[in-house]
């Protein structure tokens, strides 16, 4: 009877251990990669590994593999809204120091806009 109520059926022990080993290896990998100079790709690698690890936890430990569609929609929504919050506020900060005049205008009158170059604003 216990099994019959369990909607998410019990996963095999072997799978959990496999996921656990992978997660530990990935932790070692992400720490190791930090000691190699990849330029901007260091950040990309670190985030990619983190996303991979998080996906493993969500899919296997949290049983998202077997959960209903609704739960998957909730997960996707949460991630999507987090990206809206970060991404859309970044549109402001990443374009603030661009002056809203064409390049030729700026290059012809450098003295006017000089103070804006290189500053975050």
């Amino acid at each position, binding site marked *: 009877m216990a099994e019959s109520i369990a909607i998410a059926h019990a996963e095999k022990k072997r799978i959990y251990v496999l996921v656990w080993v992978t997660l530990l290896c990935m932790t070692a990998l992400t720490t190791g990669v930090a000691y190699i100079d990849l330029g901007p790709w260091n950040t990309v690698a670190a985030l990619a590994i983190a996303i991979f690890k998080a996906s493993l936890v969500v899919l296997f430990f949290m049983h998202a*593999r077997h959960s209903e569609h609704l739960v998957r929609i909730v997960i996707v929504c949460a991630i999507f809204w987090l990206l809206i919050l970060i991404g859309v506020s970044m549109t402001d900060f990443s374009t603030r120091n661009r002056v809203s005049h064409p390049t030729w205008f700026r290059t012809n009158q450098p003295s006017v806009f000089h103070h804006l170059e290189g500053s975050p604003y």
Partner: protein
Amino acid sequence: MSSEADATILKTSTASSKAHALTVPEQFDDATQQHAAASLGMWVFLATEVLFFGGLLASYTIYRYLYYSAFMIGSHHLDVVWGATNTAVLICSSLTMAMAVRAAQLDKQKHIVFFLVLTLIFGLIFLYIKFFEEWWGEYKEGLAPIHFTYAGLHAPHVELFMFFYYVLTGLHALHMIVGCGIMITLIIMTLRGKFKGGRFNPIENAGLYWHFVDIVWIFLFPLLYLIGGRY
């Protein structure tokens, strides 16, 4: 994959008349409905948690973009070894938590207690490292924003980084403390036989919460400790 899940749900609904013998709260028809509601409720709660951390993560991202070199300096003052160790500790606790849920699904009462205790121990180890090996060390170095004596390059912006470090890890540690409290409650409830006969919604939901807190740390580790590499 989903058809498999559907099949289990079908199986449960045929068993629901039997499940009805277990008393469910009056607003539910049967245990299946209760389980589905509890599970969905937990996931929705975790979605709000994502956005709760999201406000901090967005601020962090923006300041990291504006003051990248200061954030790198700040990051290099943190101890990667302890950070990686704590990541491993939390991953272990996630494994034991998953095993506890599995034990509950299979109605193995002793295993539930065993794995919950292990999860609690890992959680406490994490908190010990966080409090005494990391925060206290950084405080003594004069890096904590309440007692900030660092006067090197980009000092004000390094202080911003340390602020984010303390608030993000602090909020995470708060979640861990709540999680440990939940573990203790669940252990007591299990010992009193509250989860016999396949009623394990609280354990399953606590598991979801615990794994979520683990995921937060999985992101915090590279975001805080590994800015700009260590080479």
